[in-house]
């Protein structure tokens, strides 16, 4: 039927014509991946600005912020932030960052772009679903941002939206009217977008691999995107009904999450029979796998990038790395109660949830040790992707270690709801995962844009950000141990007043580190339009994306041919013209 060497392709869709088809309603996974990445970029800057406002307020609460009263006359009269405004900034910051940045960029962004290419496919299995999933996500983002502009303002219940605060409606205070309902609708739409995406990723990975690309020969990043999609398929399927039930409580008079006898703002609420703990169970059953959705792609991306800069494979190879990813995914479903140790649920269950939570430390330790063991004896090339990967390792160690404390109920008694928790999740999610995204950007920019990013700027970006994030988040551990409570708009309690200087320090670090990100933004945009032309395989890497006939790849990725794969990814050899063997090479000799 088809011969191995001449592989004519029946294109599943013709090359797009016209601006709208090419760049707006595109079916091309590469364009969709960049659209997701662009959405995440916009979201991260909005989320970051929100965090700057929060940190300035926490550092200098008595200082009027010029112009803020114009932005929000109710929220910041005279430029001084009201507590509810602070809480609404915090809620939107968390929601935007967790959903629209961390679930988007490393998975939907890079995954959409590179998964088909890394397995030798022409596109995703369902390009129309793919396009739909992006636009549904975009719609979700618009609905969320709309909450900023409604009369009562955005919700104040945190990204976790605990009931009854989130469920009783406007009696609960500012932000809890239309803003909270819009939040619910936005997240429900987001779930649908993610589910469509997961269906695509899983079926593409299982069904569209080119000849020779067995599951064992897939790059670590592909495996990570695959495992993350499986987790997402199950997790978002639970958040969707939870949000719908929450919306019903708010608009249809149901009481899923609201017990009887509540008196809010002096009004007896007409609800009965519901349970606030039910919301927590449903939310965290989604919420814990969600944070693994946030970190696993970066773990995959870092594991994928490192070999090119160590000139050797990760210790243990596919079996151990992929085994750890799968262990993470599996265990992530058994631990949700560790967010609820003190919630009022049966205290015996705290012990039950604590055990698998601690056991997750094992695959986490394994991957860190594998990375360290790979660096041993390597020949490290210190380009910017490598620096961000190495920085990731350090940050993942730091962030992971604090988890070990919180996993134990006896210690969580003291650290729950303090800045220790804030330190933990920011280090693993906000910092480590973002370093994974940076590493991916610097690594894949030559392929996506056909241009090299400026290495000098990239290195400045790295050093200053690396120092900056430690300055912001390391002190949070200390004040958390001292009992600094989180989600507070001000620290007026006697024992917290002495910690205010630490807050000032962290604010300055946050603003400085935020400013440094402008270097990245400038570098990214300058490169996209005016960067130096990149060779096809600038990092001398081994996987299929570096075998495309052009950068950026042609619309069908491989220019009219399907590649044939002869070997595992990450093969490096001694002798020969080069020290690496690309996956499409039939012979095990290093050639450029």
């Amino acid at each position, binding site marked *: 039927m088809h011969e191995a060497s001449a592989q004519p392709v029946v294109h599943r869709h013709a090359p797009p014509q016209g601006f709208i088809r090419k760049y707006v309603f595109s079916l091309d996974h590469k364009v969709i991946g960049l659209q997701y990445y662009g959405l995440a970029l916009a979201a991260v800057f909005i989320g970051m600005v929100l965090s700057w406002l929060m940190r300035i307020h926490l550092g200098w609460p008595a200082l009027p912020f010029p112009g803020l009263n114009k932005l929000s006359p109710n929220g910041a009269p005279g430029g001084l932030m009201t507590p509810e405004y602070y809480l609404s900034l915090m809620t939107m910051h968390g929601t935007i960052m967790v959903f629209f940045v961390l679930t988007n960029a490393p998975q939907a962004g890079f995954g959409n772009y590179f998964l088909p290419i890394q397995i030798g496919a022409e596109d995703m299995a369902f390009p129309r679903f793919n396009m739909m999933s992006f636009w549904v996500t975009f719609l979700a983002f618009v609905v969320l941002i709309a909450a900023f502009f409604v009369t009562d303002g955005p919700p104040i219940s945190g990204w976790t939206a605990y009931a009854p605060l989130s469920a009783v409606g406007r009696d609960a205070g500012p932000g809890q009217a239309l803003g909270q309902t819009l939040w619910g609708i936005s997240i429900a739409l987001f779930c649908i977008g993610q589910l469509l995406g997961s269906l695509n990723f899983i079926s593409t990975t299982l069904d569209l691999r080119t000849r020779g690309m067995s599951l064992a020969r897939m790059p670590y990043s592909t495996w990570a995107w695959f495992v993350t999609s499986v987790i997402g398929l199950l997790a978002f399927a639970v958040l969707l009904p939870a949000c719908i039930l929450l919306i019903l409580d708010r608009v249809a008079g149901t009481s899923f999450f609201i017990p009887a*006898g509540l008196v809010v703002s002096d009004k007896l609420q007409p609800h009965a029979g519901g349970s606030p703990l039910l919301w927590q169970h449903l939310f965290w059953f989604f919420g814990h796998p969600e944070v693994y959705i946030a970190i696993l792609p970066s773990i995959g991306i870092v594991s994928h990038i490192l070999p090119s800069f160590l000139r050797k494979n990760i210790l243990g190879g596919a079996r151990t790395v992929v085994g750890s990813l799968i262990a993470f995914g599996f265990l992530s479903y058994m631990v949700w109660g560790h967010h609820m140790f003190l919630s009022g649920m049966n205290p015996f269950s705290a012990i039950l949830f604590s055990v698998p939570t601690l056991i997750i430390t094992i695959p986490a330790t*394994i991957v860190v040790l594998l990375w360290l063991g790979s660096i041993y004896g390597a*020949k490290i090339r210190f380009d910017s992707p490598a620096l961000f990967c190495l920085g990731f390792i350090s940050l993942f160690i730091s962030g992971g270690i604090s988890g070990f404390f919180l996993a134990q109920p*006896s210690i969580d008694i*003291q650290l729950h*709801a303090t800045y220790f928790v804030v330190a933990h999740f920011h280090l693993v999610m906000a910092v480590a995962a973002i370093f994974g995204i940076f590493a991916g950007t610097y690594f894949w920019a030559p392929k996506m844009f056909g241009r090299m990013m400026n290495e000098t700027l990239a290195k400045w970006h790295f050093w200053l950000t690396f120092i900056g994030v430690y300055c912001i988040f390391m002190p949070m551990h*200390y004040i958390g141990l001292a009992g600094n409570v989180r989600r507070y708009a001000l620290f007026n309690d006697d024992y917290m007043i002495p910690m205010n200087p630490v807050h000032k320090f962290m604010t300055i670090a946050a603003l400085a580190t935020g400013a440094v990100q402008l270097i990245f933004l400038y570098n990214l945009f300058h490169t996209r339009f005016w960067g130096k032309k990149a060779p096809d395989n600038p990092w001398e890497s081994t996987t299929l994306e570096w075998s495309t006939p052009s950068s950026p790849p042609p619309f069908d990725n491989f220019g009219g041919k399907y590649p044939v794969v002869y070997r595992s990814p990450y093969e490096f050899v001694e002798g020969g013209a080069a020290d690496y063997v690309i996956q499409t090479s039939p012979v095990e000799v290093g050639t450029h």
Partner: protein
Amino acid sequence: MTGKLFGLLVAIITIVSTAFFVMHTWWLPQDISTHGHGVDHQLNETMIGTGILFVAGQLVLASFVWLYGDKKDGRKIKSFPGGAAVMVTFAIILVGIEILVLTFVGSRVWASAYIAPPPADAMQIDVAAEQFAFYFRYPGPDGKFGVIHPEMANDANGNYFGLNPANDEAARDDVVVGELAIPVNRPILLTMHSKDMIHSFFVPELRLQQDIVPGLTVPIHFTAVKTGKYEIVCTQLCGLGHYSMRAYLEVKTQDEFDQWLKTQSGD
């Protein structure tokens, strides 16, 4: 050069951060409870165990990056002796042991505070949490608490608990105050309710924290061993006044407490 800079930076960050942990520059406040030493012990053990892993991990990273830059000298690439098997085994055994030990000891600490029932002679105090204050209720000389009627709660009249003294005899002598006064060295049982949102009761010095869920009555118990005034802070986001929701725990001698209670009942 880059590798050395990275190694140096990571080493400095590690040493500085660890120093602040070791020096207890910011640390837990004093422990005034009977069960708290268990929590502190667990925390310290974990701090040491993870501290070693933290320092070792970061310094290994730092030194490997320092040592293994590509010096373009044609040196052969080395593989870690023992391969992945060493890493996997080490991780499973080391972390596995830590998990077992910490879980075994930690469960007892947890159980002593949250699963074990309160002593039979514990003094029961009723707690009402609402947006944005805590109120405390003592049963008065009859030793009985009046029934709570949520629809009768009226902050303006000071009827925070929704009591009905006109029709409920047990409610008539209930003492309702805004501070939690307790006698030292006496087991205390708090039965906590919320009127509106989920709140949380946290006293860092007591090593005790518990969410107060509307629709449930949540019990916690403890014994304080040192007199003094300590802060109770709300730790579950409950609305715009969450940051200002606090009360004071006043641990008094038995005599001082009796005197205090008499004064409160008087007015």
